[in-house]
């Protein structure tokens, strides 16, 4: 069962061949047995999952089943879950149990999905390797057989590793600068970052509010579509969510790609990309040409400024978003504070890890009196230029395609001492967040036995188009079905 997709498991449950309780138990057993190798989960909710599975079976018996009823999955530990601790990968929230559900969690519950637990992640979603988690690094299931522990990417590294290792068929993720797409690429699964505002951010612990977006991670494009069907939609509790009709994302998966115009951003096929990676990506694009798509080169002249702009805007927002972790109301508080200032400084010094502290410092500096115009305001201007580049590109083409990462999964520890090298992991993904666009990562080949991702970028609210393009590719290839040994 563990190799089946959400769509397949849904059909198994519908046919009555297996109950959700049985299915859930099988996945829980596998999770307990296997996850020691990956550390992809922070919290496993065995009792709750079995209770939910029972409720799902009842729901199905009562004729109220949705495609998700009884299907196991997992949440990135950034989504608040009522009664289940939500850590955001931080010591700061090690014992934090929210008394509310994130809107995304609520929606999966309403659909009858069975959450097996909370997946590991970089602390407060800050990282590209899942090494900044307070709960330990996550190991990529790929490359383990060669004896080397590689990173799964980040920050949704736990979700990506768990899906790749077949511990769950699907998991939620969030993407602020590439945190769904990069780990999806490094773990050989499919991931979608929707348009900013498509999925509610309520109850999703904020890193950089104007960039954060919840999204989907599963092996197939079809499963991503099934996930987005549940997650997307306006939420009156999130003032930045957009009130716009949600299509059935599975309905258009089978459309032909004949005549689809694909743009290849010149700047994304630069010398930062190894020849072996470039070859895999170009092979994937050839497959699209075979299916009748038309390929042309386009330019995103300001793309090279994206990392610099991002590393001003995201830390600036984070510096304010993380101020609430002060030891006053919930979360970690230092031992025996001698006064208020001592409580603040030690709570935050002890509760946050180095990468989080680094970004709070950068953000605080960027917003400081006398620096605001030079950094924050300038970065916002650059952000507008980057958005304009994409708007111009989408006048000529339907989607853009590019690599997701410059190289495949790297070894644990390889980049931990060099923050800038780590930040460059997101060189192809960050601009998309700055522009608020939807983008997918789709498995597109291997380099040295490690998965390579193809990035498909669309105009605002073109998720159905991206899923269609990914699904058609997956009908002709089997990269997404390869299982790590």
């Amino acid at each position, binding site marked *: 069962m563990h190799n089946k997709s959400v769509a397949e498991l849904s059909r198994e449950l519908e046919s009555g061949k297996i109950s959700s309780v049985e299915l859930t138990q099988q996945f829980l057993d596998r999770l307990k047995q296997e996850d020691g190798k990956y550390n992809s989960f922070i919290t496993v909710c065995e009792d709750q999952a079995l209770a939910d599975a029972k409720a799902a079976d009842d729901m199905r018996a009562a004729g109220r089943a949705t495609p998700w009823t009884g299907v196991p999955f997992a949440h990135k530990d950034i989504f608040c879950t009522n009664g289940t601790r939500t850590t955001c990968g931080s010591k700061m929230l090690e014992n934090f149990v*929210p008394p509310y559900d*994130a809107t995304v969690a609520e929606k999966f519950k309403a659909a009858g999905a069975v959450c097996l637990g909370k997946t590991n992640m970089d602390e407060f979603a800050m990282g590209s390797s899942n090494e900044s988690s307070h709960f330990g690094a996550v190991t990529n299931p790929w490359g383990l057989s060669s004896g080397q522990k590689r990173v799964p990417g980040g920050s949704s590294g736990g979700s990506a590793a768990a899906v790749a290792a077949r511990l769950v068929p699907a998991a939620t993720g969030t993407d602020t600068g590439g945190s769904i797409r990069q780990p999806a690429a490094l773990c050989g699964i499919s991931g979608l970052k929707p348009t900013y505002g498509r999925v509610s951010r309520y109850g999703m612990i904020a890193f950089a*509010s*104007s960039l954060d977006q919840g999204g989907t991670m599963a092996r197939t494009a079809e499963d991503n579509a099934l996930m987005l069907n549940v997650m997307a939609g306006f939420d009156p509790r999130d003032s930045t969510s957009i009130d716009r009709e949600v299509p059935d994302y599975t309905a258009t998966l089978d459309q032909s790609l004949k005549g689809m115009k694909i743009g290849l951003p010149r700047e994304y096929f630069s010398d930062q990309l190894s020849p072996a990676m470039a070859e895999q990506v170009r092979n994937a694009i050839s497959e699209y040409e075979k299916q009748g798509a038309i390929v042309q080169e386009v330019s995103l002249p300001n793309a090279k400024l994206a990392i610099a702009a991002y590393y001003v805007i995201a830390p600036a927002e984070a510096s*304010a978003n993380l101020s609430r972790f002060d030891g*006053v*109301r919930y979360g970690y508080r230092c031992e025996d504070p001698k006064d208020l200032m001592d409580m603040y400084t030690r709570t935050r010094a002890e509760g946050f890890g180095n990468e989080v502290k680094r970004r709070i410092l950068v953000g605080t500096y960027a917003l400081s009196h006398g620096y605001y115009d030079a950094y924050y305001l300038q970065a916002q201007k650059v952000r507008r230029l980057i958005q304009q580049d994409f708007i111009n590109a989408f006048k000529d083409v339907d989607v853009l395609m590019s690599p997701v990462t410059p190289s495949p999964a790297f070894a644990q520890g390889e980049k931990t001492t060099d923050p800038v090298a780590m930040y460059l992991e997101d060189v192809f993904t960050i601009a998309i967040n700055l522009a608020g666009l939807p983008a997918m990562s789709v498995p597109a080949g291997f380099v040295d036995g490690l998965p390579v991702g193809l990035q498909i970028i669309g105009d605002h609210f073109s998720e159905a188009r991206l899923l269609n393009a990914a699904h058609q590719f997956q009908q002709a290839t089997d990269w997404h079905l390869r299982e790590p040994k």
Partner: protein
Amino acid sequence: MQWDIVIGLEIHVQLATRTKIFSGSSTAYGAEPNTQANAVDLAMPGTLPVPNENAFRYAVMFGLATNAEIGRRSMFERKNYFYPDLPKGYQTTQLAQPIVGPGHMDIDLPSGDTKRVRIHHAHLEEDAGKSLHEDFHGMSGIDLNRAGTPLIEVVTEPDMNSAEEAVAFAKKLHSLVTSLGICDGDMSQGSMRFDVNISLKPKGSDELGTRTETKNLNSFRFMEQAIHHEVERQLDILEDGGRIVQETRLYNGDRDESRSMRTKEEANDYRYFPCPDLLPVEIDDSFIEEARNSLPELPDERKARLMEEYDLNSADASTISSDSNMANFFEEASRRCGEPKLVANWLNGEIASRMNQENIRNIALAFIGPDVIASLITRIKDSTISSAGAKKVFDALWTGENDSVDAIIEDKGLKQVSDTGALETMVDEVLASMPEQVEQYQNEDNPKKRKKMLGGFMGPLMKASKGQGNPKLFNEILVRKLGE
């Protein structure tokens, strides 16, 4: 040297919305600590703000009532600082694009002149919670019930030149926001708080002096005292050739002392930036028109109408129109008894002094209603009771002992005797018992002294009539009989 005093005000006005500015929690005052703070107010991880439309409506009403430009596109910013009663570690406020732009308000000066005070802008923001330092041994308590209560902060230009003008502005603003119904005006509960910016400059100079800001004054009286105190302090320094340090000061009203809270150099860097959780808010014409149509009669308009319709003088009309409940009471009572001048006298006299004594801020909360005061006035006018009797009836009405004027007159036997025959008999008897005084009176030529001597007979006459003789009739009979 002669000095000009220059004063500008920043006034925090709590808006009387039912729920908070960014969450659905109640804003009601006085609940058990932290029972009106939900996950958003507590800044729990992942929670998000959703703006309260009514807060915008109230701010727009304020803008329209102060002749201000309305910010068609306003924006929230984050003002970052750490404080235990500030749950998010930043206050959501407006800086670059406030909801209310430049406007003005005219104040009445004691001289009878009016003065225009310009308002620089007014912006929407959230209130903080409260730190409680008592009852917690070696610790502080935090109550977040107030956190997220909507405020408008009204910032004036430095257009006031004395404590009296500043207080007149503050009172006028109080009267305006309560008349608009956008603030309950209860200063004891912090519904209005004042920060006062004060500087001195050589008389007639165009250049402003260095200013200080005295923060968080929560009554008109403290504000007035604090201004006098700060003006004196600055004057002493300047007269001694010293320099004023730009700083924020705290004033202790109970001790009439102030101390420096922080200087400009120690000021926080608030690192303002646009709040990414809230989109800019566009206000369209229909929203503004709707707000305009919901404006009640404003205090200035009402004052003019009271003078016109009820023939009140400016002072009475000012006092009554400044409090919309009072003004409603006045109009209702006047309609019922047809004696607006007497109603005004009662309102500004006995009723005002009792409200003051008993700290009642809203006349609607007194036992006495406009219908009742109208019957009382009717009974005075038709001579059923004397003015002395009316005071007794009023006491009974005020304490809630009874709410029927006629029943009180009956119960307490306050009905005046106006039967001339009976009164004449009493006068005859009293005069007969006071021959010396009668003789003195008749030998006195000075009419003023004679009038005074008449009073000497009134006491015994009222005693003889058990207080129920009509004093006017007694007087007439006395003058006639003594003249015989």
